[in-house]
């Protein structure tokens, strides 16, 4: 293993530009003659638009153009789409309401796009927007997802008269009912998975430039998947054919899912740039981000868990109402279905599971994938109900989990997924030891002595990532394949460019991908550059989300490197005058087996391009290879997180004292980067558990639309973390990688809430467990538990 190879914590190559202020984000892009867009947004959650008068605004200084939904309709600009078809249990397709990029006739949430003003400066565009007169007729709004399907509720889209997009189900209802009929104990739980706002630190932005000479649109946009953006803008929205549309996602300042989707703003900018034949730039302010970025989570769930007399889980029954907001965002339909229901077996051997999900429209911002996407919701439910079942039946939290763990692989769950590899008891044992679980009693007593309540909570999570086998997701309704592509270009001097369809917005691909190439080709890491985020450079790709960049993206690079090595051996054979079958490649050197005749990688590259030593008709000159790689299964990272915290019952303030995580991510490329992903994920999960929550009032006004109101985790809200990994190799990709991007955010919320409820002695805690929530709960008498 070299100092830059696989498994080494190599310092990140991309850091130099970020720490010196030379990063290149979309808002740093400026095109000659650019105009600025400002979106006039709906102040109402639900209203008809009766008239829009732009006459005064058009006369305002600096205004170039003002467009409304009528202009979009006149130009036949297609609506935004949801790319994953879900069918209801009666076989009917989901009810997708139209989603025009600028509202037509009706607005459906506060922040919905009513008009765009384009002016010489942003300030002038914003000033002019105030002169637009919009005549609305306000309609009653529906905000609470549990109330959305009720008779008489305001109807968000006529296509769904009961606001229900689909009634989906999975699992075996009869078998599950039978398990409950025979159960020795049934644990019941009602919970809400609180609505979150992703809040990548870089607000969304777009710069669109139209070249009338070539009839080409170039769109710089804050995207996690520029090719998918191009595909949707081209094939569905119809802005330009794909070969006349270039999408560039340069440095992107965090995504967490929210930048997967194709939004109204970049659509309008790209369309308007051509319309006015002038570059158009738009950058969201944070208020717009709160209002119009796709939100996350927002489930209302009732669940029941059946146990036999020995404490084995025999059945799990779930009913969830999922709020998808006012419109179906790009992948929204998949989140509360295939990314949720399929994970309900957790780490446990559960023979029967049945899950129903009703997805509903409300007059709120669209809801889509946010870090973990469905899997945090599943884990929160499983790990809360498992914990409560252990407590109700007087069993130790760890031992109850251990008793029900899946211990042999592959394991077919009753909800489609087949787990390929794992060692759940090992992670549990290590986490218990690291967390000094045995010492908890003494520490609780010490806390009690100073008037504090100490609690310990654990979470044994699993997720399915490495998205995803194309045929499998196709059969589940996905509109796209989820393979990845790579191209490895070896230059004549032996330096290498790798083009990938994945996209880095913090994950460190420029380093980890280079580590793979350096270890395969035996060349210095500085001789390798990673190219991503430009549809004119990279052939195609599905982007980065669902921890797919390692297991899928790097597997594609690995496959291309296989081809490079095979071709290079042929070239080396000619140069060394030996059969290609006698050539060995190791540590950057091609050697004729059993001899000291060798040639280094750079010389082979040069010979591949000079083509002097072989017949160019028999062997193609050059050294560049392409690969598409489709995974054979999802990957299944899993682990155990343990949270230990202290509550001040006088104030309700929760202080996290210790955090222990033991994760199995398969093979690690760069442990430093993996740990960083875990730190960030845990913190976002702690945010969900203690601080964050999007709140709409009954009129559909977002009350948490700034950092003054929406509480983001800050440095002094969280502790330092104790993190280790164990390793079971993933068998479904050549590198053995499982992925680590979501794990922390999936594992942590139930660990926190299990710890708080442990400390308080009862289970009635809603997220976010703010000091007010915890203080109120602390006033209630603790339940008498079976264990006590």
């Amino acid at each position, binding site marked *: 293993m070299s100092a830059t190879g696989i498994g080494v914590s190599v*310092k*990140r190559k*991309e*850091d*130099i*530009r*970020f*720490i*010196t*202020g*030379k*990063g*290149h*984000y979309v*808002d*740093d892009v*400026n095109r000659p003659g650019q105009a600025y867009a400002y979106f006039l947004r709906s102040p109402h959650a639900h209203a008809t638009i009766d008239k829009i008068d732009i006459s005064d605004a058009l006369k305002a200084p600096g205004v170039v153009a003002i467009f409304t939904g009528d202009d979009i309709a006149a130009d036949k600009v297609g609506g935004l789409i949801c790319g994953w078809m879900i069918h209801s249990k009666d076989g009917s397709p989901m009810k997708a309401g139209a989603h025009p990029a600028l509202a037509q006739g009706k607005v459906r949430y506060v922040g919905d796009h009513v008009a765009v003003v384009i002016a010489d400066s942003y*300030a002038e565009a914003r000033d002019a927007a105030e002169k637009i007169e919009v005549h609305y007729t306000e309609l009653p709004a529906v905000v609470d997802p549990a109330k959305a399907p009720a008779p008489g509720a305001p109807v968000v889209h006529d296509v769904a008269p009961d606001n229900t997009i689909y009634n989906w189900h999975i699992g075996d209802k009869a078998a599950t009912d039978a398990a409950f009929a025979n159960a020795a104990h049934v644990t019941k739980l009602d919970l809400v998975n609180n609505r979150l706002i992703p*809040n*990548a*630190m*870089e*607000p969304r932005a777009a710069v669109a430039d139209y070249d009338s000479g070539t009839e080409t649109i170039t769109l710089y946009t804050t995207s996690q998947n520029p090719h998918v953006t191009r595909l949707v803008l081209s094939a569905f929205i119809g802005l330009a054919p794909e070969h006349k549309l270039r999408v560039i996602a340069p*440095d*992107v*300042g*965090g995504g*967490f899912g929210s930048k997967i989707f194709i939004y109204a703003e970049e659509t309008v900018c790209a369309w308007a740039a051509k319309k006015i034949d002038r570059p158009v730039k738009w*950058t969201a*302010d*944070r*208020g717009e981000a709160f209002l119009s970025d796709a939100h996350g989570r927002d489930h209302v769930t009732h669940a029941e868990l059946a146990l036999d007399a020995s404490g084995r889980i025999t059945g799990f029954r779930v009913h969830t109402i999922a709020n998808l907001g006012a419109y179906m965002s790009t992948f929204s339909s998949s989140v509360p279905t295939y990314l949720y229901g399929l994970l309900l077996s957790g780490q446990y051997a559960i023979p029967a599971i049945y899950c129903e999900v009703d997805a509903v429209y409300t007059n709120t911002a669209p809801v889509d994938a946010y870090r973990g996407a469905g899997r945090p919701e599943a884990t929160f439910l499983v790990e809360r109900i498992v914990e409560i079942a252990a407590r109700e039946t007087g069993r130790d939290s760890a031992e109850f989990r251990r008793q029900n763990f899946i211990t042999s692989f592959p394991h077919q769950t009753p909800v489609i997924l087949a787990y390929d590899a794992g060692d759940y008891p090992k992670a549990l044992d290590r986490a218990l030891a690291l967390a000094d679980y045995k010492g908890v009693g003494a520490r609780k007593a010490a806390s009690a002595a100073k008037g504090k309540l100490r609690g310990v909570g654990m979470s044994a999570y699993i997720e399915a990532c490495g998205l995803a086998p194309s045929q499998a997701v196709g059969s589940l309704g996905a509109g796209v394949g989820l393979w990845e592509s790579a191209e490895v270009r070896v230059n004549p001097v032996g330096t290498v460019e790798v083009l990938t369809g994945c996209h880095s*917005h*913090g*994950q*460190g691909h420029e380093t980890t991908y280079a580590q793979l190439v350096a270890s395969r080709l035996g060349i210095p890491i500085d001789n390798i550059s990673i190219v991503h985020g430009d549809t004119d450079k990279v052939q195609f790709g599905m982007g980065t989300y669902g921890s797919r960049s390692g297991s899928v993206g790097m597997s594609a690079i690995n496959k291309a490197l296989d081809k490079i090595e095979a071709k290079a051996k042929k070239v080396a054979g000619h140069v060394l005058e030996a059969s290609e079958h006698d050539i060995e490649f190791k540590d950057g050197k091609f050697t004729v087996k059993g001899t000291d005749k060798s040639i280094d990688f750079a010389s082979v590259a040069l010979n591949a391009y000079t083509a002097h030593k072989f017949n160019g008709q028999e062997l193609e000159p050059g050294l560049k290879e392409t690969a598409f790689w489709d995974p054979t299964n999802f990957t299944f990272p899993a682990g155990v997180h343990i949270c230990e915290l202290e509550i001040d019952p006088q104030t309700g303030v929760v202080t996290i004292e210790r955090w222990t995580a033991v994760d199995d991510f398969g093979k690690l490329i760069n442990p*430093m*980067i993996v*740990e*960083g992903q875990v*730190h*960030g*994920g*845990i*913190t*976002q999960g702690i945010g969900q558990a203690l601080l964050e929550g999007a709140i709409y009032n009954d009129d559909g006004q977002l009350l948490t639309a*700034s*950092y*003054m109101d929406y509480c*983001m*985790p*800050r*440095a*002094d809200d*969280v502790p*330092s*973390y104790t993190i280790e990994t164990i390793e079971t190799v993933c068998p479904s990709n050549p590198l053995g990688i499982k992925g680590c991007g979501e794990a*922390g955010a999936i594992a942590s919320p139930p660990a926190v809430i299990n710890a708080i409820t442990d400390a308080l002695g009862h289970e009635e805690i809603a997220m976010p467990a703010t000091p007010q929530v915890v203080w109120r709960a602390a006033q209630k008498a603790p339940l008498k538990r079976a264990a006590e």
Partner: protein
Amino acid sequence: MVHVSMTVNGRLVSAEIDPRTLLVQFLREHLRLTGTHVGCDTSQCGACTVHVDGEAIKSCTTLAATCNGSSVTTIEGLAQGGKLHPMQQAFQDNHGLQCGFCTPGMIMASVDLVNREGYGIDEQTIRHGLEGNICRCTGYHNIVKAVVQGAREMGAAATPKAAE
């Protein structure tokens, strides 16, 4: 329009600007110093942190006109003579950044924090002192480690060679 004149990263700059121009707009749009970022509109996130006359301020809520005659240092001006500032180096060494968007503000705030609290600053003081800078990627764990290292090395750099 108003006239402003200030020293930015050691260079004297002057311009006629709209009076409502914020310092961050002046830096990003007039001087094309795009290392300073805007992450919010309520001076909460700290991505826009720069130094004015040696102290950290949030440039998104400072009018450029009020900085007339001041000396401004941005992330682009922190490295000296081609050598990274110890705090910049510490952020790389400790993986104190992921997407990089909050990083310039985080580094500028950290340098100011160490200037105020001393080279021996402890973790709790760092966590409290960085409360005005939000990072969504790192969970702060490695940022705190970076600031501890950066502080120590700022101290070493400030100590005369004779002390070695």
